[in-house]
């Protein structure tokens, strides 16, 4: 029987598989997509040192290392259920049959949260991640001219990728204000969260204004008050903090959006409504851990908003309270790809040490430290309070 089953061939699952196999464990990786790499496949961004992070290359490097270690891969295989048999081993149920193994690592990543907006069920409306996959993985333009709804680090990063791919975008605007868009539809709240990504914006003006505003609530208020209607450009993309889409319109598919200007609290300014012709709309409401399988395995959860919502309980070695069940990557909380890789490596060592094939406490210790330092130095923080969220889990 296989020593370790891994669900998810993203950066976490691949890194874990490599660590397991390097320590002599027979390892199998399952993923429902046709290519290994998970969300890495869509990523393209510039590091502060000017070097580009090309997710497709990173995925290929990991995959080649894994192949060289004779890890077995089952791609295009969806895991739809799992069970622990005789309290001893795990059996995964998939659309390609059953697979059993002694240990199980779930590294299923994150899912996108959309935002319900009138007209969001029209063809041509998609999540921002879908547009990323179309452009960066399949090399298809999502449409001729689009607009992005939802101002956050994910939408800003992907909008930039879409621009680089030659896609026309009106800009990034806010969703309409109501119960389900709280915190994402009021310019003053969104501005506050944007300040945490000023280091990503190359415009010096934004940098200085940003740093000052981070410290002073007065400057913050002034800045939101005088924020231009046309928006600030970040990476050539106007972020329109004072514009909202009130409705997506079209008969058979998207034909345009109704936009309106709003004040700092998100109240619509009367008479400001106009229609912009677009043929696609990307909605970005954030990410949450995709933990369905972990829940079916009987693992308890904690609700930690700074990590993206409900996350499986696990310790600093990525082990859950359920025997033989481990987690790594975005399923444990939303963070960037490098953190997922470090977590995967740690989980792989942790599983190997349980099998007594690694008794090297030092290697585990180093891997734990590497997760912490990668987290602290991460370029993209999906939430300003991630460190606090992690403390709530690991103490």
């Amino acid at each position: 029987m296989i020593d370790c089953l891994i669900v998810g061939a993203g950066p976490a699952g691949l890194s874990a598989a490599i660590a397991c196999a390097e320590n002599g464990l027979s390892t199998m990786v399952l993923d429902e997509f046709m290519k290994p790499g998970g969300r890495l496949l869509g990523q393209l961004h510039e590091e502060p040192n000017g070097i580009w992070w090309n997710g497709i290359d990173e995925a290929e490097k990991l995959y080649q290392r894994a192949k060289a270690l004779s890890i077995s891969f089952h791609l295009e295989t969806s895991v739809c259920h799992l069970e622990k048999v005789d309290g001893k081993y795990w059996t995964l149920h998939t659309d390609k049959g059953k697979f059993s193994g002694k240990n199980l690592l779930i590294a299923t990543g994150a899912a996108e949260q959309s935002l319900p907006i009138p007209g969001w069920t029209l063809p041509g409306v998609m999540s921002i991640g879908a547009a990323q996959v179309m452009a960066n993985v399949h090399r298809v333009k999502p449409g001729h001219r689009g607009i992005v709804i939802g101002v956050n680090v994910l939408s800003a990063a992907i909008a930039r990728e879409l621009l680089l791919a030659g896609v026309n975008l009106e800009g990034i605007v806010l969703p309409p204000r109501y119960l389900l868009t709280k915190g994402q539809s009021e310019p003053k709240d969104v501005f506050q969260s944007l300040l945490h990504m000023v280091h990503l914006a190359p415009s010096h003006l934004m940098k200085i204004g940003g740093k000052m505003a981070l410290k002073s609530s007065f400057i913050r208020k002034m800045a939101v008050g005088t924020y231009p209607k046309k928006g600030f450009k970040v990476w050539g993309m106007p972020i329109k903090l004072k514009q909202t889409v009130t409705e997506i319109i079209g008969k058979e598919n998207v034909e345009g959006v109704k936009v309106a200007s709003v004040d700092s609290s998100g109240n619509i300014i009367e008479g400001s409504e106009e229609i912009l012709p677009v043929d696609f709309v990307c909605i970005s409401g954030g990410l949450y851990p995709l933990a369905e399988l972990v829940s079916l395995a009987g693992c308890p959860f904690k609700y930690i908003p700074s990590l993206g919502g409900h996350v499986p309980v696990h310790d600093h070695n990525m082990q859950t309270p359920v025997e033989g069940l481990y987690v790594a990557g975005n399923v444990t909380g939303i963070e960037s790809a490098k953190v997922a890789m470090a977590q995967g490596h740690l989980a792989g060592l942790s599983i190997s040490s349980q099998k007594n094939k690694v008794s090297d406490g030092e290697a585990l210790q180093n891997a734990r430290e590497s997760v912490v330092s990668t987290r602290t130095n991460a370029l993209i923080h999906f939430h300003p309070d991630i460190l606090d969220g992690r403390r709530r889990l690991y103490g």
Partner: protein
Amino acid sequence: MENENVIICRCEEVTFKEICDTLKQYNCSSREVKLRTRAAMGYCGGRSCRSFVDTLVAEFSRRPRADDVQLKYRPPVRPMPFKTLGGE
């Protein structure tokens, strides 16, 4: 927002108004909202709308979100043909 008829659960076509009306009348849990309206009971297994339902329940009940997952995950967590589930 003016348009209360915006759809929240795409699979079962349940609107924002239907969920809010249910919560006003019964001040109930996510599970009861699901059973009464069919929100989060469709094809996608609540992947798209479960957090909207939880958010509305928290808003109406004025209680913080619990650590337990409110709407239980049920296998299969992906749409599967009957054949795969054990038929001949």
